[in-house]
């Protein structure tokens, strides 16, 4: 198949942000210049209609402002811009800064320093990250690592409510970016490395009270899978979330929610991906392990499950599906399709019908050895039996992608309705996977794994690529020396933006990938660039520098903050510390 006609994207403007009166409501065809939610819009496109920055003038992009956050953890996530204020959430201790963009030097209007338990640091598998805040109804809403959700008054910085949603003592932390739909604040917990019983909760926007809790695994009653409402496109029967697990292994089966959520207001469905099954030793949880490594579609009002599709049944490789679900209206085979596009850790890019969860396309975007293909009739991967893992199999060699993913779920893609292309970072790593029997000890890791990494074919450890989700084909890619961990941004000026792990921030031509500008931002980039129109009417691009996010990946020798913690370089990424070290810095670029 080939993409024939123009694909179009439905942009779901954040009505609440506009209604707050911080800036006049935009005409439909114009961008309001703000960035009010993690991915800019409910469809998670990370696409801005701003056009001032173009391939012609982008070589003139230069830094106009920087600010140290004072925090060293991995700076994933992205700032928000609402009206004339920029909001920034740091990794633990989760400080919230509000910058006045109308004044020279962008001084702080206020900062909010919540009390956040340091105990949460030890229950975080992969650094103390935070993936960002959500603006709605005059409130900034975000999650604290120690399992709380807070709402802060966007004008004054005053805390409006604070609700405990997760239990650190049971291995739960909260790193994901919340999504607010109507009166519901949707949050989920990390903890796939701690054997949690994964969930999503909805809080009341006004009071912070928990309205509903939906498990991602377990019995239908816990999953809010109601007869008649729930229809899985490739499965049938009751209690799939328990029957697809040996004995009661679902009780400690993981399925965390640590990435991103999307919402389609026409279908009234919220979409999110679940993480890996626990423990990593798959022989301790025989069966498909539904609905780990899956995408779930729910009604925001009451949480009821509408459909679910599992990308990686019986996850043998820590292939979380926590990455973004991008909602785009595509032309596939000449037909308009309300699609959901997802780049999975398992190396396949999936295009689904977002009304039903049926699979339309699945093609590898990275080097894949664990499966030969995805069967479109059954929705299931065609496995390579020699890449199945488990404690009885010893060290299984040559599995690609590595458990860092063909792309990290931390690195969300962007979609341009002008080029009809998706833009994404990728990792080019393979692994050997040696499972061991894991013992479940509450509050400690539940893993059982040793998985040394190696470079994939070509030797470059990452790329930034453009992908056609209507045909399942890569259009161009820029090879990068290191695994690429930044999110993507694309604009109506046809310029895409990303950062590299060794600390280069780049703008590229969205149609060709040609590098238009690059600047060394002081630390590796694992954050996601945004763009906005400043109070002066000019277009700016902002991004965090601040390497971190997974100390199994990132070679511990990039750390210099603790004289009692000195680590050797990782052998597959030996010289990264020769190019970067930790440190959170906000950068703003302009023309």
């Amino acid at each position, binding site marked *: 198949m080939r993409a024939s006609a123009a694909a179009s994207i439905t942009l779901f403007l954040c009505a609440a942000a506009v209604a707050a009166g911080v800036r006049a409501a935009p005409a439909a065809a114009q961008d309001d210049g703000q960035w009010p939610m993690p991915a800019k819009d409910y469809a998670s496109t990370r696409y801005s209609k701003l056009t001032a920055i173009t391939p012609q003038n982008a070589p003139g992009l230069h830094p106009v402002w920087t600010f140290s956050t004072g925090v060293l953890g991995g700076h994933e996530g992205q700032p928000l811009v609402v009206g004339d204020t920029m909001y920034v959430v740091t990794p633990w201790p989760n400080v919230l800064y509000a910058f006045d963009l109308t004044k020279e030097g962008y001084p702080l209007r206020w900062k909010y320093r919540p009390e956040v338990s340091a105990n*949460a*640091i*030890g229950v975080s*598998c992969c650094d103390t990250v935070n993936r960002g805040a959500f603006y709605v109804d005059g409130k900034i809403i975000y999650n604290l690592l120690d399992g709380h959700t807070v709402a802060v008054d966007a004008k004054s910085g005053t805390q409006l409510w604070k609700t405990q949603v997760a239990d650190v003592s049971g291995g739960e932390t909260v790193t994901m970016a919340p999504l607010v739909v109507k009166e519901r604040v949707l949050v989920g917990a990390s903890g796939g490395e701690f054997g949690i019983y994964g969930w999503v909760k909805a809080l009341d926007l006004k009071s912070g009270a928990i309205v509903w809790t939906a498990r991602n695994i377990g019995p239908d009653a816990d999953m809010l899978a109601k007869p008649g409402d729930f229809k899985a496109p490739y499965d049938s029967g009751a209690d799939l979330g328990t029957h697809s697990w040996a004995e009661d292994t679902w009780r400690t089966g993981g399925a965390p929610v640590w990435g991103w959520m999307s919402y389609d207001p026409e279908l009234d469905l919220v979409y999110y991906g679940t993480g890996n099954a626990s423990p990593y030793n798959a022989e301790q949880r025989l069966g498909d392990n539904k609905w780990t490594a899956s995408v779930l579609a729910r009604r925001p009002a009451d949480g009821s499950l509408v459909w679910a599709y599992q990308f990686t049944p019986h996850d043998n490789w820590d292939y979380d599906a926590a990455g973004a679900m991008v909602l785009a209206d595509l032309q596939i085979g000449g037909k308009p399709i309300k699609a959901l596009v997802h780049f999975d850790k398992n190396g396949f890019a999936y295009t689904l019908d977002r009304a039903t969860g049926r699979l339309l396309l699945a093609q590898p975007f990275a080097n894949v050895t664990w499966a030969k293909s995805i069967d479109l009739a059954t929705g299931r991967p065609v496995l390579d039996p020699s890449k199945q893992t488990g404690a009885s199999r010893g060290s299984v060699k040559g599995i690609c992608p590595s458990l860092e993913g063909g792309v990290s779920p931390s690195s969300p893609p962007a979609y341009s309705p002008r080029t009809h292309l998706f833009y994404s970072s990728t990792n080019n790593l393979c692994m050997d996977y040696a499972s061991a029997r*894991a*013992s479940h000890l509450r509050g400690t*890791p539940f*893993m059982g794994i040793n998985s040394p990494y190696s470079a994939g074919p070509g030797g470059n450890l990452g790329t930034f690529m453009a992908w056609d989700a209507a045909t399942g084909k890569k259009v161009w890619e820029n090879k990068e020396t290191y695994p690429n961990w930044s999110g993507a941004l694309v604009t109506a000026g046809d310029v895409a933006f990303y950062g590299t792990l060794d600390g280069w921030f780049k703008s590229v031509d969205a149609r060709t990938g040609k590098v238009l500008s690059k600047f060394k931002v002081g630390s590796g980039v694992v954050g996601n660039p945004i763009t906005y129109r400043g109070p002066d009417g000019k277009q700016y691009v902002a991004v965090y520098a601040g390497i971190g996010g997974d100390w199994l990946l990132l070679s511990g020798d990039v750390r210099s903050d603790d004289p009692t913690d*000195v680590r050797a370089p990782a052998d597959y990424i030996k010289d990264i*510390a020769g190019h970067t070290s930790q440190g959170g810095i906000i950068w703003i670029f302009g023309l």
Partner: protein
Amino acid sequence: MSTSNRRYAGVQVRVVPAAVLACLLLAACDHRDPEPAAQGAAAPPAVAYEAHVAAGGVAPPGGTLSNPHQGDKAVAAAGANLFTAMNCDGCHGPEGSGAVGPNLGDGRWRYGGADAEVFSSIYYGRPKGMPAFGGAMGADGVWTLVTYLRSLAPPDNLPTESFESAAK
């Protein structure tokens, strides 16, 4: 530390390491209460930290704990198994090389590297996320881990990392 931190003082340890491991795993899996530790009648308030700066140059009175397995290679080997079985490697990496938790094989210690200090870190836990394992493992399990960790040999020339040689 408060004076309630006395439970481990004076614990008598006479258990074969392999049997210890089996008992510990059983206890952990069954969520049973750990073996109650003996309480010394005249127990000191806490471990004395040798490297701490003493205000006025006067060190406070502190307890002394000695590792019953110090230097025992068989116990160290059992401790290596325990390091995996109790999920220590999930945070500190394979062989304690460092992940979300610090490297334990670099010969450097955030909270002191004397046997008693390492014991205290594991038994009671530490701020910034080190869980307290004393309840799940009991004193002898902790000493077994201490013996293993103290057996790890730090690399040569730890402070210096040259990138010029790495690139060639």
